[in-house]
């Protein structure tokens, strides 16, 4: 509290005020709070309200029906399946991402010839706008002209008439969207993991070397625990982004074939927007919120606990 009392004037008193932590903090935070409150908080409250009403057809009000929307959704097999699909989609794609990004980050941390150009290739999926690359994947998975199919046919692993339809069966379609989601998240996670590795102070490395810890043992006992906080944050972001994002399933499969790749976000969109059941759509979209909030708080708690400083 380095405020020095200097005599005289409103100006000085104002300066004094901004020296106080609380006041300055409030001043600096208030634009953010205001902004988020208005543009996220208010619509969120409205959405919660809508989920308890029978609002239809794009309107923002409706007759109150309590928990009926939620009860109705739980009776709907498509909704229940969507919960499972969301879980599968998020868990598998992020598991793949974590493993791949972890490996990549460790490999990239030290310089080697060609690292710059290889890093460029690795960053491409994240640099490209996902809405566009998803459309690009429609082309890669196209029923007539899929390059993957052409490869397989060339290698005589499948016949031209009996080729796999990448988006045509539930398993294939789910695998495809998981692949694309993992593909585009790996660079992002790699960068964050790299940051985590880079944050390990040199002294720790040196100490480990002196103690004879190398390779896998060093990884397990030294690197991993130190990277955990950042790794957890990366995983958390990945989970949250994937669970709340609809671009990949929407563009690639529109939830199909026969609703077998509907995730909660796309089903909420389908129900609430395209079919005009706004209240139901809100209920579906909100369903994830408590679960995600729980996961978030849990992971942040562990991340803080894991901080080793």
């Amino acid at each position, binding site marked *: 509290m380095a405020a020095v009392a200097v005599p005289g004037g409103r100006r000085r008193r104002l300066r004094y005020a901004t020296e106080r932590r609380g006041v300055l903090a409030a001043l600096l935070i208030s634009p953010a709070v205001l902004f988020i409150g208005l543009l996220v908080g208010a619509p969120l409250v409205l959405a919660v309200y809508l989920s308890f009403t*029978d609002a*239809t*057809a*794009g*309107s*923002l009000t409706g007759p109150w029906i309590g928990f009926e929307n939620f009860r*109705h959704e739980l009776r*709907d*097999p*498509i909704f229940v399946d969507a919960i499972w699909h969301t879980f599968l989609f998020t868990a598998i794609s992020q598991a793949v991402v974590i493993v791949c990004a972890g490996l990549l980050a460790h490999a990239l941390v030290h310089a080697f010839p060609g690292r710059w150009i290889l890093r460029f290739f690795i960053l491409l999926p994240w640099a490209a706008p996902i809405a566009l690359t998803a459309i690009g994947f*429609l082309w890669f*998975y196209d*029923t*007539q*002209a899929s390059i993957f199919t052409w490869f397989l046919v060339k290698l005589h692993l499948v016949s*031209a*008439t*009996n080729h*796999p*339809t*990448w*988006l*045509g*069966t*539930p398993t294939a*379609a789910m695998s495809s969207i998981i692949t694309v989601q993992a593909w585009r998240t790996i660079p992002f996670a790699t960068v964050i993991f790299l940051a985590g590795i880079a944050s390990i102070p040199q002294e720790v490395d040196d100490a480990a070397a002196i103690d004879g810890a190398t390779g896998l043992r060093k990884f397990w006992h030294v690197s991993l625990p130190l990277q955990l906080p950042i790794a957890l944050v990366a995983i958390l972001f990945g989970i949250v982004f994937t669970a709340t994002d609809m671009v990949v399933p*929407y*563009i690639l*499969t*529109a*939830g*199909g*074939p*026969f*609703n077998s790749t509907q995730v909660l976000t796309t089903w909420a969109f*389908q*129900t*609430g*927007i*395209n*079919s*005009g*059941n706004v209240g139901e759509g809100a209920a579906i979209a909100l369903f994830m919120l408590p679960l995600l909030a729980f996961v978030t708080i849990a992971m942040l708690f562990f991340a803080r606990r894991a901080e080793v400083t």
Partner: protein
Amino acid sequence: MTDTRDEPAPALLSRREFLKKAGAGAAALGVAGATAPFSFAGPLRYKGRWLSGSLTALTWVHFVPSYDQWLDPWAKAWGEKNDVQVTIEHINNALLDTRAAAEVAAQSGHDLFFNLHPMAVYEDQVINHSSIIKEVEAKVGKYLPIAQQSTYNPRTKKYFAVSDSYVPDPVVWRHDLWNAVGESPATWDHVKAAAPKLKAMGHPIGIGQSQEIDSNMALIAFMMCFGSFIQNENNKPTLLTKNTIDAVKFMAEIARTGETNDIFSWNGNAAANNNYLYAGTASLIFNAISATRTPESGAAGGQYADDLWIWPIPAGPHGRIGLEHLMGCWSIWKFAKNRPAAERFLADLCIAGKDATIQSQLYNFPTFANAMPFKEIRKVAAADKHKPLGKYTILTTIAEKYTHNIGYPGTTNAAIDEIFQKYLIPQMFAQVSQGKLSAEDSVRHTNTAIKDIYAKWRKRNMLA
């Protein structure tokens, strides 16, 4: 592009900039091969004075580009005559529903909104269009039953849209391939018999069971040929019948023996089955004549153009009953800024039905009896030079005899709309065709979902 402005006002400069930079002189005229969707901005001055009114409309990018090349200049001329600046926006058809919801939520948007299916769900957000229909009827004859059934709610006695056109839905098939197996798609039994042979040749059938509009139309029409209807004439659900189960089983058989898994992968993409045909793979698809017009134009599949035949929907045990492929419906929002101009525009557009039909190369059929009587359409079709000669004349037969509204024998209503939007019918078929569920179970589950939906909309007082 003739620009009659003398001095550009500051607000208009960016539009002019855009017109110059994006080479959108073509967009302004809507001609000369500008096939990209565009925003049409009519001239703002006409005969030396500023146009006083303003009208905005949203419509799709027509699958037959010549229609848009007619519509935009027509709208511009209309604007000049009526002292209104008309702006027509064209977007991808897949985005129309989302945009409609956004405009309603925002309570602001385009004055006129077009969609490829009647937006029964938005009935409360649009005006009653009966005055427009009366006005047009006075000029070009009665509003056809198919249009009436599609855009009228008997419970609220309200016209929630005006259909300016409908599109007959034929099967488009490769005559050379079917000839090679000695078959033709006269009945569904014929199709089932030919399917395995065609697939063996590497040219499977291509009737979609995906989550997109073409699959919806094809499968619902197919069901009707088997006597299976989603609702009856009183708009009460009637899905769970033996006919439905038979239909599902039949289509599953065709899928198993004569189609590949491609038909399940066309989700969100109404043009996928078209492209299946253009690539030479499909031996039969269920589609409007854009499937023949595009090859004819040379844009894709040109080498097959002469072998593509157009026939009505194959007959089933219950007869030959088809749906329209698309129902072009315009709605005017209650919050439209220029309702009088919108009503005028819509009326005049319907009155110009004959031009629309001709300019869309017989894709759009007028919804008012005398706009272009079937006889006239047949004459134009007979004069069509594409091979085999006279192939388009069947369209009038299809339109007259085999085309009905979605929800036949009832009306198109919000419940049907929701069933449509959630693709419950393709789901019902696809689950069985892929062997995931038995036909009985699939139909039963879908029936439960459908009854649920009907009950919901009935409670909201939107169903008779």
